[in-house]
């Protein structure tokens, strides 16, 4: 009975993707197997990819939130379980470290005429990935509340954000005018990384994996973060990006730094928040000190092709992905994401992230050991924010936790 049911379920499922007509003009045969994260914008891309399936070309997609945990073991066997890995700049290093993705120069030359120079991720002179969308954190402000507090221009630095928060509080408009994704773990670390990137200081000593954050810049960043938390709801350490966006919708917040991918519903006047949305203004993330870099490290989402596959499958996979991220995608779904595709005209929900890009935003570091640093930051900064230790103690703790992890992974001795 077991076998029977499995078979019939499999038959039901396989019927779905194959039905689509081969409409993307790929004459090559092959097997395309894609591993991707599971969220709305990627659904659009994957839909286009599966439409390429034909009698000779099979396209299968596995969209799962566990993709980061699966990609290394799945690509390390031969032949690889997946031919395409959809990645972001922080999930590419594990694949690069193990040499599991192949250079794409030949494929780009042959099939990649549609790509803009911006989309090409080149490492050591070789094209290792193709980017197609961008994300990052930027400033959301409530124009009506700022005006009520007598603030004329939208803050562009963290110092101005603090002044504005004080003005809003002292005039009794809101007790806690700020919000942020400060939940310990990945999100809290991301706040630190954003602000530290904005200081322009390096995370590591040049050319090594030695940490360099226990510095003046690190202390300034922590002190700024702590100053900001004074204007946040006392719950702030349990609030992640999803809750922060709800707080915004409830009108509890006047300013916050949040993901561009969350902007859509918050500015939609016909959506969940008709009173808040028309007053929500999106601008570049504030800067710190005089480096002039917005405090919102930029993430790109893109794809790479596995090494352990046949050349036919690699060529077929690349062509399918080229169809999936063709300029049509951006014109058909302009609000789907902040595309990095030729011909994309930023819509209202993307003005903030585009401001980040144009005012000198930097990419989230793609260093092999950045994940370890990020994890150490996420776990070790809580005590400082709760006032249980000094900034130096916290940064020393981060460095010690990072060092233990980096020694285990062989980056440090």
């Amino acid at each position, binding site marked *: 009975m*077991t076998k029977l*049911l*499995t078979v019939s*379920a*499999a038959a*039901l*499922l*396989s019927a779905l993707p194959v039905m689509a007509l081969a409409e993307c003009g790929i004459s090559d045969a092959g097997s395309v197997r894609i591993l991707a*994260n*599971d*969220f*709305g*914008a990627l659904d659009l891309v994957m839909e286009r990819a599966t439409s390429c399936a034909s009698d000779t070309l099979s396209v299968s*997609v*596995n*969209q*799962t*939130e*566990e993709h980061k*945990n*699966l990609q290394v*073991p*799945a690509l*390390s*066997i031969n032949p690889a*379980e997946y031919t395409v890995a959809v990645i972001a700049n922080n999930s590419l290093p594990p694949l690069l470290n193990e040499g599991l993705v192949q250079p794409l120069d030949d494929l780009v030359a042959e099939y990649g005429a549609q790509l803009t120079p911006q989309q090409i991720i080149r490492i050591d002179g070789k094209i290792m990935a193709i980017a197609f969308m961008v*994300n990052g954190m930027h400033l959301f402000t409530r124009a009506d509340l700022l005006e009520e507090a007598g603030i004329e221009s939208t803050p562009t630095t963290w110092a101005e954000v603090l002044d504005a928060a004080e003005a809003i509080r002292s005039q009794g408009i809101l007790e806690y005018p700020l919000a942020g*994704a400060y939940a310990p773990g*990945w*999100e809290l670390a*991301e706040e630190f990384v954003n602000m530290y990137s904005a200081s322009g200081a390096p995370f590591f000593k040049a050319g090594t994996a030695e940490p360099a954050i226990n510095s003046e810049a690190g202390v300034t960043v922590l002190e700024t973060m702590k100053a900001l938390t004074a204007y946040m709801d006392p719950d702030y350490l349990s609030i*992640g*990006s*999803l*809750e922060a*966006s*709800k*707080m915004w*919708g*409830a*009108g*509890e917040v006047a300013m916050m730094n949040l*993901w561009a*991918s*969350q902007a859509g*519903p918050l500015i939609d006047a016909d959506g*969940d*928040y*008709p009173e808040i949305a028309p007053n929500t203004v999106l601008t570049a993330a504030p800067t710190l000190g005089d480096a002039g870099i917005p405090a919102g490290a930029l*993430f790109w989402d893109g794809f790479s092709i596995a090494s352990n596959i046949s050349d036919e499958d690699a060529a077929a996979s690349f062509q399918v992905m080229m169809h999936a991220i063709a300029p049509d995608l951006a014109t058909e779904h302009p609000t789907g994401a902040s595309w990095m595709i030729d011909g994309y005209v930023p819509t209202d929900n993307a003005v903030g992230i585009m401001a980040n890009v144009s005012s000198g935003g930097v990419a989230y570091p793609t260093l092999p050991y950045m994940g370890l640093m990020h994890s150490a930051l996420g776990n070790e900064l809580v005590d400082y924010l709760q006032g249980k230790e000094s900034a130096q103690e916290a940064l020393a703790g981060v460095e010690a936790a990072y060092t233990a992890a980096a020694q285990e992974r062989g980056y440090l001795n």
Partner: protein
Amino acid sequence: MTSSPARPNYTLTLIATAFVLFWMVVAGFPFLWTTWGSFKVEADFFSRADWSNALSGVNTIRQTGDAFTMDGYKGAWILNDFWRAGLNTMLVTVVVTVLSLVLGTLGGYALARSGYRYAFWILILALVFRAMPHITLVSGYLVPFFQLNIWGTLPTAIIVLVAINQPFTLWMLHSFFLSIPKDLDESAMVDGCTRFQAFREVIVPVMWPGIITTGLFSFLLAYNDFAVTAMLLRQENQTMIPKIASFLGSIESEGNVMFAVSSVVSATVPLFILVMFFQRQIVGGLTAGAVKG
């Protein structure tokens, strides 16, 4: 009333009923709240502005024109093919429960009837196995499973769940078997049965209560598992829990929480029917059951 006292004590029955009522509220209210909320839009059920929005449905009325909406259910079942995950879950839970019980009754019977030291050490070893955090085990499976090309399929996940579930099943069924007198199978064997015949014809029929109780827990374990199913199944084989997790969204991307909420509520319906249908057996099984440690 099973433990029928000679004089019915109404005060005590009243206190007991009040306590049960209190427990019903504590156990059931979050679920009731979730069921109610599954017919609202997200801005109401997860409202930070005012919790009473979840009752009045202000935003639901504004967005859909009615105080109750089926949007969550439509989104999950029609747009996102939740039925497919439901089908997979059904398959996984039923097969896991049956296999766990078959393996567990055989092993548990042997452990209960063996007087040798090694039986004790096997029990202890099973206990150590049960102490293993599942996530550590699962991360170790990935590379071999990919190499053997068995990753992502339902049979693989089922076998892993059965294996992970074995220590608990063994312990529980072993306890049940201990409570069945040895004379029963020994006299059957004197009458000319083989050991296996005695087990099948004499012991198992007496054991149904224990098997049903253990089966209930095996069922719930397979039904609620996230660690194994999220990491070992590919998308088309996904069961309900990972599917619900994907509705919830992650840090950078908002999911559709109401799809998740309505999925959870609808996933409880078959369980409710199951419990109501087998109510007599479960209660009866429990009533006749004898668990001993």
